[in-house]
């Protein structure tokens, strides 16, 4: 288990290094610079700006400077927000995105587990078909459209909630549903197919033959066994929540990291783009590590290997 963990951590560090290097190279290749504007700046001003941000150094020197800085957790200055560094912006906006992502994940799990269980248990019934129909709709409906539709229906037509604010619990409802809907649909469909397979296994028949209550058979024997595939998709799911948050924060005007990322891309604020990319990658690497540890708990066979 320890050696597996060490291997995973080194793999994670490798991923971070590759992403840091690739982002650095990509942004050096990108046409146009952060200081291109409608009105051309005088060459002296450009030279001064480049000297300030070390853009006049050879590329390899910039690369080493950048790597050693991020190793110390310093993502450098932002080109756009002159009063705040990139690390500061990330520290300010990450909690908002994390809350939104956490709520959406919770929402997805709360919907997916009952729906998946019901659909699998009453396989090929009307309930099953309804659940899977809704799941297909959920997977196919892009989150920006769902968000726009919810704003139109709940805020503009019905007037139940206000949008464009992020201050109390009520303002989180619509963004949470928007971000969590696709993962909920995806998880429900996955859980259903795994459970159907599990319910046909011999140990489930044995559990029933022993005269156990149906609820215990379903939850303790079948559901626990079906958790492994669900855990496996947690990594991609976390990735989906992260990128989903770009869109949802944009649609609902939430001051999170995703929204800053989008504006950084349109502004060509390279240090901010690199900083946010690395934070996202680090989050994913940590999620995958956590999933690997959880595997060991859910499936004792993996711990032994």
């Amino acid at each position: 288990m320890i050696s597996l963990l060490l291997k995973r951590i080194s793999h994670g560090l490798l991923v971070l290094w590759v992403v840091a290097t690739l982002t650095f190279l990509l942004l050096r290749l990108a046409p146009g610079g952060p200081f291109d504007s409608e009105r051309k700046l005088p060459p002296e001003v450009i030279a001064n700006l480049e000297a300030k941000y070390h853009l006049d150094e050879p590329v390899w020197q910039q690369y080493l400077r950048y790597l050693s800085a991020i190793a110390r957790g310093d993502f450098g200055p932002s080109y756009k927000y002159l009063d705040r560094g990139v690390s500061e912006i990330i520290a300010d906006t990450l909690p908002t995105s994390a809350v939104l992502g956490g709520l959406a994940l919770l929402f997805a799990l709360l919907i997916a587990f009952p729906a998946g269980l019901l659909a699998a248990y009453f396989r090929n019934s009307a309930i099953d078909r309804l659940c899977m129909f809704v799941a297909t709709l959920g997977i196919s409906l892009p989150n920006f459209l769902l968000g726009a539709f919810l704003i139109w229906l709940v805020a503009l037509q019905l007037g139940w909630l206000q949008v464009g604010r992020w201050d109390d619990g009520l303002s989180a409802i619509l963004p949470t549903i928007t971000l969590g809907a696709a993962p909920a649909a995806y998880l429900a469909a996955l859980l259903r197919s795994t459970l159907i397979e599990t319910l046909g296994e011999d140990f489930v028949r044995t559990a029933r033959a022993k005269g156990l209550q149906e609820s215990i058979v379903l939850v303790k024997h079948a559901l626990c066994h079906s958790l492994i595939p669900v855990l496996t998709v947690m990594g991609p799911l976390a990735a989906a929540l992260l990128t989903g948050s770009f869109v949802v924060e944009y649609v609902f005007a939430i001051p999170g990291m995703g929204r800053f990322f989008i504006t950084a891309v349109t502004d060509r604020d390279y240090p901010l783009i690199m900083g946010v990319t690395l934070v996202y990658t680090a989050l994913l690497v940590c999620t995958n590590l956590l999933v690997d540890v959880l595997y060991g708990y859910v499936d004792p066979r993996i711990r032994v290997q």
Partner: protein
Amino acid sequence: MRDPTPAKSITLNPILALCAAYLALVLFIAVLAPWISPYAAGGLEEQRLLENPSWTHWMGTDGLGRDLLTRIFYGARVSITVGLGTSLIALVIGTAYGLVAGFKGGNWDHFMMRIVDIFYGLPDMLIFILLSLVFGRNIGGLLVALALVSWVRFARIARGQVLQIKELLFVEAAGALGASRARILLRHILPNLVAPLIVTLTFSIPSAILAESTLSFIGIGINDPYSNWGTSWGTLAQDGYRAMRSHPHVIAFPAAAIFLTILAFNTLGNGVRDLLDPKQR
């Protein structure tokens, strides 16, 4: 092993037939947009801003007085090109890569799949946004960027299948009969990959369309309203989103186009998977 039933059951299943018919219609519109559109691309009518649907403008007009039906027709070109184009590029690159990795095995396989793992773990959208900074916001750059993101799925599927198939007896027999490695790979192993690759392809098309329309919606996708390529449905939805409070029709039509197209591809994908791999049902 050639079972004639698959083609038959597609026509028998009304939902799948409906999806296929809808997608054929979208394809038809995408190809023939300049000839069947009721108005010229980019034609403005200053007197008719944000008009509701009527007999002259079936889907109404947008904030600049452009006919929405025409814009949707042209937008189909973007979606279809992106969906099919990226998926086909990714299919070719990914399959070749996976075939080589799986067939070579050993350290080669380990190294090649480590690269795939790194790409696979990252969010598509993130890589894609970074790549679009380099390649620019035109349809060619978008195709390259999206293909670079989605080839790993094909590589993983192909490699996994090759690992299984190359141990089978008929491969050994072909080798014993003196077939070259290239011949074994192309004549004996590749045909067995067709079914899972088709399923992956069917699901990869809607996710490319989804990625493209999402990027366009948040303002970093294709935006080129005056060329024959038209404007992405995602950009149309973005335009409509701004006018949603007073004129919901401007977002409703592009939204329906995006949703129905993705839904049709996903439903068709599920159908194809069930047909080709009955165990999954």
